[in-house]
């Protein structure tokens, strides 16, 4: 999996490309927690090019969102393929994570 990190208007953007599973989730966890340690308060994960997610990936997103909330930060997720979004819904995560359509929608909401 490829993770591209960008910053736009003070928002840390993580663009995920490929498969987020038990093999790749640790690398993603390291990157996202490095950004939280570095003081990032606004985070956006772009799912546009993410083909696949398993519970290992959900776990990292849950953990990071909790950590960010403790720091009074904000996490948003955008541009999911329908079947990726369905995984968040089956897990019940859509009730407490903010999932929006496009990156522009997300950036305006910070």
């Amino acid at each position, binding site marked *: 999996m490829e993770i591209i990190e960008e910053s736009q208007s003070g928002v840390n953007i993580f663009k995920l490309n490929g498969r987020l*599973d038990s093999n790749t989730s640790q690398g993603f966890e390291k990157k996202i927690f490095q950004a939280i340690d570095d003081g990032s308060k606004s985070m956006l994960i772009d799912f546009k090019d993410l083909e696949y997610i398993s*519970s290992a990936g959900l*776990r990292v997103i849950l953990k990071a969102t909790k950590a960010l909330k403790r720091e009074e930060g904000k996490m948003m997720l955008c541009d999911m*393929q329908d079947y990726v979004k369905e*995984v968040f819904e089956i*897990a*019940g995560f859509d009730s407490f994570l903010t999932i929006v359509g496009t990156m522009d929608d997300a950036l305006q909401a910070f």
Partner: protein
Amino acid sequence: MAKNKISFKLKSKLSELDTLCQHLERFGQSIGLSPKCIFEANLALDELFTNIISYGFNDNKVHTIEVTISHKNNKLIFNIEDDGMPFNPTEADTPDLECTIEECKIGGLGIHLAKNLMDEVCYQRCKEKNILTLKKNVKEAEPAKKRVKG
């Protein structure tokens, strides 16, 4: 005509998730499954396989997990066999899905996903092996659709 059954073996290593995905994609495409259906089957098998290799063995040996997938009468049937400790995922607790983010725990989520993505999950313990049989109803094969942004 496309072959309607495949069997393959996976070693008890996380890197085998890629092998699982390759087999599923090749088989799924050959019988005309939709990308969504391949994705869901992949996720269910990933979660059960990851669970087996994470908790099923208490030695450091490499074990073999056997997978068979067949397609008949608009039904996909998956068979997963391992020689690990007895574990029946159909009896695993369902995570609390009504919880708040603070209360939310990740344990049991993988099995919950697998059960939801399949129409039937059966477990048997036979000859020192765990045997899982999963069934998924699929629609008639249809051409792959392009992603529609919504």
